[in-house]
C-alpha cells in the first residue's frame, strides 16, 4: 500500500480539516480531488509530517508518518503555494534542496542540471528565482521535488496559475513521472480533467471526509444496473412521470439515473413524447470525473441537510 490511514484527524481550532479519515491507497498514480477546503492539502501535509495529526495514524510506503525523516527521504513534495527562496538561482536552489535531501555536492549539481533539463528550464536556470514567471516557478518546484529521485511524488495543485500551454507541459511532465516504473504519484487538484489525465485511482474528499475512492474507470462506469439519461426539457417532470410509471429514478447534475427494469426504454420515450422533451443520451452510466464529483458532493450535501 502506498498510503494507509486509520481514523486520521486534524483539527485546527473548530475546523476539522481532516475528519476520521480511513483510506487504503494502492501504489501507482493517485488523484486526490475535492473542492477548496476539502482537506486535500492538510491530508498531504499530514503524510509529510509537516503537521501533526490530532488523532489517528497513517503509514506512507509502509512507514509510520511519526518516523518523519525516513518517510520524507522517499517523498518529493511540490507545494501549491510559492515557497521558493527568491535570491537563489534556479539551479542553486534545486542543488541546495538536493544536498539537504542527502546528495553529495557533485551529484547534487549534476542531478539538478538533469532535472532542470527534464522540466524544460534552460539558460534561465542561472537567473534568480525572484525573476521567474509563474510557469517557471512551477517547474523549479517540480525539479526540486524530483531531484533526489523519491519513490513517492506529492503534487499539490501543480497546474495552479499556469496558462493552457504551461498546464499541458506540466501535465506531460507529471504524466511521464507517473509512468516511470517504481514511482508513485499523488496528485491533488480541484481541476478534475488534470486528475483524469494522469491518474488511475482517485480518492474524493469533501469536508475532510472521504466520499469515494476507487479505480477511476470503475467509478466513472458506475452501477451496471442503472442507466443514465440526458434529457433536454423539464427534467423534474420527467423524473416524476418515470416514478409514476414505477421506475426508480432521480435527477443528478450529470443527468437522470434510472434503475434498469423491463419496459424502461418504452417508458422513457413515452414520457419524452408526452412532455415534448428530447432524449439526447440513454445508456451506461459513463460519467466524467467532474460529473461524478458533482453528483457525490450533491449527495453528501443532501445527506448533511
Amino acid at each position, binding site marked *: 500500500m502506498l498510503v494507509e490511514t486509520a481514523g486520521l484527524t486534524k483539527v485546527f481550532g473548530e475546523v476539522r480539516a481532516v475528519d476520521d479519515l480511513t483510506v487504503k491507497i494502492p501504489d501507482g498514480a493517485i488523484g486526490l480531488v475535492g473542492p477548496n477546503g476539502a482537506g486535500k492539502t492538510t491530508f498531504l501535509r499530514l503524510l509529510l509530517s*509537516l503537521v501533526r495529526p490530532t488523532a489517528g495514524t497513517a503509514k506512507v510506503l509502509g512507514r509510520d508518518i511519526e518516523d518523519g525523516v525516513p518517510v520524507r527521504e522517499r517523498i518529493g513534495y511540490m*507545494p*501549491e503555494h510559492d515557497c521558493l527562496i527568491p535570491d537563489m538561482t534556479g539551479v542553486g536552489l534545486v542543488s541546495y534542496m538536493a544536498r*539537504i535531501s542527502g*546528495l553529495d555536492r557533485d551529484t547534487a549539481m549534476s542531478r539538478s542540471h538533469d532535472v532542470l533539463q527534464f522540466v524544460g528550464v534552460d539558460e534561465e536556470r542561472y537567473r534568480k528565482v525572484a525573476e521567474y514567471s509563474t510557469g517557471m516557478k512551477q517547474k523549479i518546484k517540480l525539479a526540486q521535488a524530483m531531484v533526489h529521485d523519491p519513490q513517492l511524488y506529492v503534487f499539490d495543485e501543480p497546474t495552479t496559475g499556469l496558462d493552457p500551454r504551461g498546464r499541458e507541459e506540466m501535465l506531460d511532465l507529471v504524466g511521464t513521472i507517473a509512468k516511470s516504473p517504481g514511482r508513485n504519484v499523488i496528485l491533488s487538484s480541484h481541476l478534475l480533467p488534470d486528475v483524469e489525465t494522469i491518474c488511475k485511482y482517485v480518492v474524493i474528499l469533501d469536508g475532510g471526509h472521504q466520499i469515494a475512492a476507487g479505480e477511476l474507470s470503475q467509478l466513472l462506469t458506475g452501477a451496471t444496473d442503472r442507466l443514465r439519461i440526458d434529457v433536454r426539457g423539464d427534467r423534474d417532470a420527467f423524473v416524476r412521470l418515470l416514478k409514476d410509471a414505477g421506475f426508480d429514478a432521480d435527477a443528478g447534475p450529470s443527468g437522470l439515473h434510472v434503475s434498469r427494469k423491463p419496459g424502461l426504454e418504452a417508458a422513457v420515450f413515452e414520457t419524452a413524447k408526452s412532455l415534448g422533451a428530447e432524449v439526447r443520451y440513454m445508456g451506461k452510466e459513463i460519467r466524467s470525473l467532474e460529473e461524478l464529483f458533482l453528483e457525490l458532493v450533491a449527495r453528501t450535501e443532501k445527506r448533511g441537510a
Partner: protein
Amino acid sequence: MSISLPTYSRLEIPLLGRRERVWAIIATGLRREFRRPAAIVVIAIGVAFTTITSIVLVLFASFLLPGQPLNLSFFALPASNGFVLFFVSLMAAIIGSGLIADDLHSMAFTLYLSRPITHLDYLLAKAVILAPLVSMITVLPLVITALVAAFLFPLVFSWGVALQAIGLSVAVGLLLALFNTSVALFLSSLTRRKGLAAAGMFGGNFGLFIPASILASAIGNPNLLYLSPWNDYLAVASAAFGAPGIGIDWPGALAILLGVTVLAALVTYLRMKSVEVITG
C-alpha cells in the same frame, strides 16, 4: 549546454546522513551571507572598528589610561569596548533577524521541512550560520588585540599573559555570541518581517542597557544592572580578566546570560515546532 538527455533518469546512489544535510544548510547559508553587501559591510566595518579601537587602547594605554595596570586585567578593557555592543547588535539585526523570518515570509520553511531533516536540524543550522559571524565581533578583535600586545610589547605583556587573555577572550566572547545568536533567532522566529526582529534586537540590547544604567546610578541600586545583558556581560568579563567589577556579582550575571540563552533557544524550538500551518 547540458549533455544530459531530457529524460527522467534514476538516481542510483544512497543518500548521505543528516549531518551532511545540516552542513549543506550551514555552508550555503554562510555563502549567501558573504554575498550580501549589507552583511559584508557590517562584518568588515564591525571587525575593523572593534579591532582598531582595541589595538589603539594597547598602543596608547599609558597615555589614555594612566594608572591602568598592564597585566591580564588590562584585557577587560577591549572586551568591554562599546563598539562590540553596537556591532554585535547590528550583526544580529542585519544577519540574524532574517534567518528564520525570511523563510517564514517566503514560505521556504515548508520546503525545508519537506526534506528529510527535523526542526532541530533546521534551527541548529541557522544558529551555526549566525554564531561564527557574531563571534567575528565578540571574539576575533579580542584575540587579535592580545596577539598584537604580545608582539609589540613582549616585556609588558608576556606570552603567558597573552595566551591567558586569548583563552578568556574566547570564553567570554563566545558567551556573548551565543546569547546574541539565541536571542536573534528567537526574535526572527516570531515574525515574518525581519525589520521587526532587527528592531527587537536593538531594543533588547540598548533599550535595556541605557535605562538600566541611568536608573541604577540615579537611585543607587546596582541590582538594576542585572536587567541589561550588556552589563551582565561586562560583569562576567571583568571578573574573568580580574578587573574591578561594575557593581553586580558575576555569578548572577552569568546565570542570567546563560539562562536567557537557553530559554530563548528552547522557546524558539517550541515556536518553530508549532509553526505547522503555512497558508497554501
